[in-house]
């Protein structure tokens, strides 16, 4: 029906086009004009809708690409290649016996023992071949033997079966490059090294295991020994300091602003100030931490205490804003009922409003903590970028945090560190997922609708 009308009007248009403009307008009624434009308008409508869908789709696509990219790079970090071998703990070579003290075991030459073991086994010819062979084994292997002997001193002079850590180049080759065609291979391994490795594979000695060291070690220059334990501990300590300081202060400030503050110029300034602080770039808080906490108050650098102080100032506005929203959502009837029973202002606030607003405040606090967990820039400024091998024990030990560890590793040229960086990102993201899910569940279960 509309099609015919459209054709009609088209004909009319072409007929009248030679005539004057005034004639055109008089011959077309408004209804006809609208119908004439309908096709174009509907197409515009569809297009507009498509743009919208495309935008949402683009956002989702970015999310998916980001996650798959990092997951595909990072899952390898949770596996580590090792070589199963039988090695004799020769008491003469190590100069140890069953009664040896811990110190004697610590200083024994396990490194030499491993080298002698492999030299005997594969008989490399010449110095360079020997060096190539020893390069396949991680420097951490001697530490493994040492740990084994420390745990069981009776094992001396027996033949023990042990899974020796392999070097990161071997690890990468075994996990990723082995099946690649010739020429695409990692050129970090020589032909001779590949011959040895392939023979080990044929004997079924080379295998991957779950990489526990990644979760139990601190940072290291050797990728196969580098772990995130130190960074996770540092993160937890830093977040603990942040939580202990920012939650009470944030809640108290919110209560004051929402319930007690007089409506005047001063309060207005404080409110504007808090809103602005929430949007100040985080790096500025790093400058503040450096100039005030380090230079004036002399708090020591690189510590979770200092990191926690800086992150407290950074998350306070977020916590205050969400806590105020939670207080606002408690209906006035609750307050009036409490007043009616003779409660004082403070009793109304602390006995009735605060408990009812608590779930909302907790949700906001968890979100603030999640923000602090991912923060990197201000912590770079206050010295948390130091290379820290030891796992921090308390809030005044030098330490690093997970995001900064990611930043440090991402700078390393080794391919194995790239894998570990992605692995650490996966751990960081799973922490964030847990925190955000907790916040959502908390909100669903505890928050009341009035």
């Amino acid at each position, binding site marked *: 029906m509309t099609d015919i009308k459209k054709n009609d009007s088209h004909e009319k248009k072409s007929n009248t086009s030679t005539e004057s403009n005034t004639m055109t307008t008089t011959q077309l009624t408004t209804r006809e004009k609208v119908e004439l434009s309908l096709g174009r308008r509907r197409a515009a409508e569809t297009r507009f809708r498509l743009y919208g869908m495309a935008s949402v789709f683009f956002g989702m696509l970015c999310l998916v690409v980001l996650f798959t990219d990092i997951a595909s790079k990072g899952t390898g970090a949770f596996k580590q290649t090792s070589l199963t071998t039988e090695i004799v703990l020769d008491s003469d070579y190590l100069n140890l016996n069953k009664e040896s003290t811990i110190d004697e075991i610590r200083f024994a030459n396990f490194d030499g023992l491993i080298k002698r073991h492999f030299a005997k086994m594969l008989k490399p010819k010449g110095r360079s071949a020997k060096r190539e062979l020893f390069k396949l084994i991680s420097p951490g292997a001697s530490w493994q033997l040492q740990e084994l002997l420390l745990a069981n001193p009776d094992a001396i002079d027996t033949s023990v079966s042990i899974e020796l850590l392999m070097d990161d180049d071997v690890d990468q080759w075994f996990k990723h490059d082995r099946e690649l065609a010739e020429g695409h291979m990692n050129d970090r391994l020589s032909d001779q090294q590949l011959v040895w490795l392939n023979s080990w594979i044929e004997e079924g000695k080379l295998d991957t295991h779950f990489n526990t060291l990644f979760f139990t070690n601190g940072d290291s220059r050797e990728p196969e020994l580098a772990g995130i334990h130190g960074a996770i501990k540092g993160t937890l300590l830093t977040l603990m300091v942040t939580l202990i300081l920012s939650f009470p202060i944030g809640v108290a400030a919110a209560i004051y602003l929402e319930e007690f503050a007089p409506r005047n110029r001063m309060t207005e300034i404080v409110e504007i100030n808090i809103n602005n602080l929430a949007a100040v770039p985080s*790096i500025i808080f790093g400058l503040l931490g450096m100039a005030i906490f380090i230079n004036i108050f002399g708090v020591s650098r690189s510590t979770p205490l200092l990191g926690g102080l800086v992150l407290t100032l950074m998350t306070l506005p977020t916590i205050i804003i969400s806590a105020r929203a939670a207080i606002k959502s408690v209906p006035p009837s609750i307050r009036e009922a409490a007043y009616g029973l003779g409660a004082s202002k403070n009793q109304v606030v602390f006995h009735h409003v605060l408990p009812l607003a608590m779930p909302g405040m907790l949700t906001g606090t968890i979100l603030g903590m999640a923000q602090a967990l991912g923060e990197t820039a201000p912590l770079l400024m206050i010295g948390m970028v130091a290379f820290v091998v030891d796992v921090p024990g308390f809030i005044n030990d030098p330490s690093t945090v997970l995001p900064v560890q990611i930043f440090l590793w991402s700078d390393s040229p080794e391919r194995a560190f790239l894998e570990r960086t992605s692995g650490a990102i996966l751990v960081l993201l799973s922490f964030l997922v847990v925190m955000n899910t907790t916040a959502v569940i908390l909100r669903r279960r505890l928050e009341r609708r009035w």
Partner: protein
Amino acid sequence: MNFSSLLIIVIIVLGGAYFLGRNRARAISNQGVRMHSLPDHYGTLMALWTGVPALILLLTWHLLEGPVINHLLVAQLPAAIQQADSSTIQLTISKVYNLASASGIAADPSLLPAVEHLTALNERTLILNSGIALSLCLVCFVITFRRIKPELRARSEMERIVNLLLLSSSGIAVLTTVGILASVMFEAWMFFQQVNPLEFLFGTTWSPQVALRADQSGSSGSFGAVPLFAGTLLISSIAMIIAVPVGLMAAIYLSEYASSNVRKYAKPALEVLAGIPTVVYGFFAALTVAPFIRALGTDLGLEVSSESALAAGLVMGVMIIPFVSSLSDDVINAVPQSLRDGSFGLGATKNETIRQVVIPAALPGIVGAVMLAVSRAIGETMIVAMAAGLAANLTANPLDSVTTVTVQIVTLLVGDQEFDSPKTLAAFALGLVLFLATLILNFVAIKIVQKYREQYD
């Protein structure tokens, strides 16, 4: 006895004071006297009076102890060192600290008086500190305990103290701003003593390397920040070109077109993008996007820097999408339904209604949202620190490598710093510019958004 054990002792005393106060109040009321307040109020009042002054004293003491001891130590150092520059003094003082904590290491005999002085000082301050704090505790305890009488208005007094504590908590936010301004401005002022502010704001060469020794040849440092401002603007513009249209269209789609089911899942999914730590975006930009753009450019015969502004800008844009979309979503939802209904009644299609009625009505709010997003983009650090370069090129070519204000702040301040070299101080001058720029953007944007919200309430 160190600071933390003192803290614990004070907290234990505070708890004890609560119970003693409450029990005394109970004992009095059991005699049949009518008290003004509940026993709990007397207990809390006791705890507050016993704990709060001592805690405040402990904290201020702890914060001021370090600088004061340092000051006293300098007087004990050999005259030659006292005359030296501040970094030598700092170094010697940390040496003295190490010597004092690990006795038995052979020391420079000239430092010995200072080491002994430090050990003595440490002992003395500790005794003084714990003595004063604990006696303050005790005195306040006794005074308040004696005041517990039926006519003492314990509840109102307690409430006044609590309100004061609440007030001071909200003051911390103001103190933070003052602290930021004071620290950044002070160091920036020191910088402008050495470098002309006009040269800083309008100079076009940025090479902050300063010769370490007087006889060293090479660069004397030049602090023209225009390339940094230009680089920041270039990367932020690329980010906004991505984020504004996509974010806005996503917000329009989700609030006007999408079914509630789609909205329920798509909105949080988009917001996940905002929750990802920036260091992750930086890693993604540097190791996935930048090589991809470089390879693509090489295929097309373009010369692309491996640290191109485009890669950093694109990823930053993706990060900001949810920021724009959730803020615009709020303002679009705030446009009253009656405006839409009126437009539909006149025969407009949905898209015409949105473009000619809803968007103009929501425009101030959207502008505010975009301004907040811009301030976010220029303050963003990790993405640019990892994916953008360090070379201060003055260029508008997005395929080239540029550097930004935030990257330079990080590079200048990570590692060892001397607080008298213009190289370190320059970071604070850049920080001041960044702070003021974002502050103005935020201030105006928040005002616009608030004003707009009230309009339709």
